[in-house]
């Protein structure tokens, strides 16, 4: 060890301070959001939520309204109408009570429940099994609860279809384009070999619009933020008894049915 006198110590301390300041300044520059990151923004009019959810008011949802909702959804998203039930693609469709709510079927079920089909769609589960099994992260749960799909990354393995207990996912066995009757030039189609499903109209929410089926439903479908106590879904859920599909499976569906 060499001894340093007061003068040398001050010199070293001064140089160290300058070097440290320069380094710190550079670090701040490096860590600050880059030019690229600052170029992407959500649209100012976008609808956002902590937890999107839907309530189906089955008392208001008659056959006509349901047909309209399905028609609108499938037109907006270029969902093909293939006709063959083995190859059909569906985002939102109808099921009889015993198929939609197995385990909740009673011998003497109320007549309207027995007769009317139920409108069903992806439940955007809180604990989505499809996400757990996807090997490519082509499907994932967004922070606002929407179970999204990235068609670019789907390899068509259909694990998600096997995992989903609600049959919400469909597989494109062939090119869907020839079967798209009503075409929306603003939305892409899918290609052979990918899985698809309802996306809670994420592309419409991003533009500040409610989902297509909700708009077409005349109030039979209520959509909103579960985390906001004054939202319409919370009001409906607070005032009426609702059921969920297959709650015993633990996927925690976020589409509620007022029966």
């Amino acid at each position, binding site marked *: 060890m060499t001894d340093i006198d007061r003068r040398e110590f001050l010199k070293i301390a001064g140089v160290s301070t300058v070097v440290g300041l320069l380094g710190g300044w550079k670090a701040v520059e490096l860590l600050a959001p880059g030019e690229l990151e600052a170029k*992407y*923004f959500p649209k100012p009019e*976008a609808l956002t939520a902590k937890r999107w959810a839907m309530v189906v008011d089955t008392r208001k949802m008659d056959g006509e309204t349901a047909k309209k909702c399905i028609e609108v959804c499938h037109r907006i998203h270029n969902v093909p109408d293939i006709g063959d039930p083995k190859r059909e693609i569906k985002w939102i469709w109808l099921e009889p009570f015993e198929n939609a709510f197995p385990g909740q079927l009673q011998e003497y079920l109320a007549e309207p429940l027995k007769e009317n089909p139920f409108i069903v769609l992806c439940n955007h589960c809180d604990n989505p099994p499809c996400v757990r099994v996807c090997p490519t992260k082509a499907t994932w749960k967004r922070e606002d609860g929407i179970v999204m799909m990235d068609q*670019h990354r789907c390899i068509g393995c259909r694990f998600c279809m096997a995992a989903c207990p609600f049959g919400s996912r469909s597989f494109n066995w062939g090119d869907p*384009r020839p079967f798209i009757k009503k075409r929306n*030039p603003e939305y892409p189609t899918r290609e052979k070999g990918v899985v698809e499903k309802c996306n809670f109209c994420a592309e419409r929410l*991003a533009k500040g619009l409610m989902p297509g089926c909700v708009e077409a439903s005349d109030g039979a479908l209520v959509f909103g933020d579960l985390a906001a106590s004054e939202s319409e879904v919370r009001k409906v859920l607070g005032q009426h008894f609702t059921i969920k599909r297959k709650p015993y499976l633990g996927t925690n569906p976020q589409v509620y049915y007022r029966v």
Partner: protein
Amino acid sequence: MADEGNKVVDALRETGFFKPKKMYDGGKVIVGIIILFALVAFPFLYNVGKAAKAPEPEIDTPAIKKLSKAERVCVEPRPYMKVNHMKLLTDWRDQVVRQAKRDYVGFTKKTYTMSLQNTCLECHSNYDNFCNRCHTYSGITPHCWTCHVNKPKEWAAGKLKEEK
């Protein structure tokens, strides 16, 4: 060094390495080599001076013509777009699908909606004479168009020939 080299040459000479050997079927072999050379060289010789012209993608669509000269710019400067449009589109895809961000601030500070089918193709509505010119020239088949519609208006109206 030179001495050692000579030693090796001498040793080789003793083994008969430098004695001329007879080439079996020499004529046929040489003719064969000449034919092989001719075949390999044929495409190059045939195409000498006939280089394909560099493609010139057209940027004179109605939507672009409507813009004033100052407004006639893409989201980023032209040289950047020429080289990096595919990277930009990949970034757009990830931002839109994964991050739910749909607005892009271009280099002129103008805000664009990040959409291949709705924003890019609005100006570049001439798929055949814009995208395809370079892609054909460079032998590239992008996977965009199996899902995204390259001619949205014609497609919506059912006017595309390739429809089955």
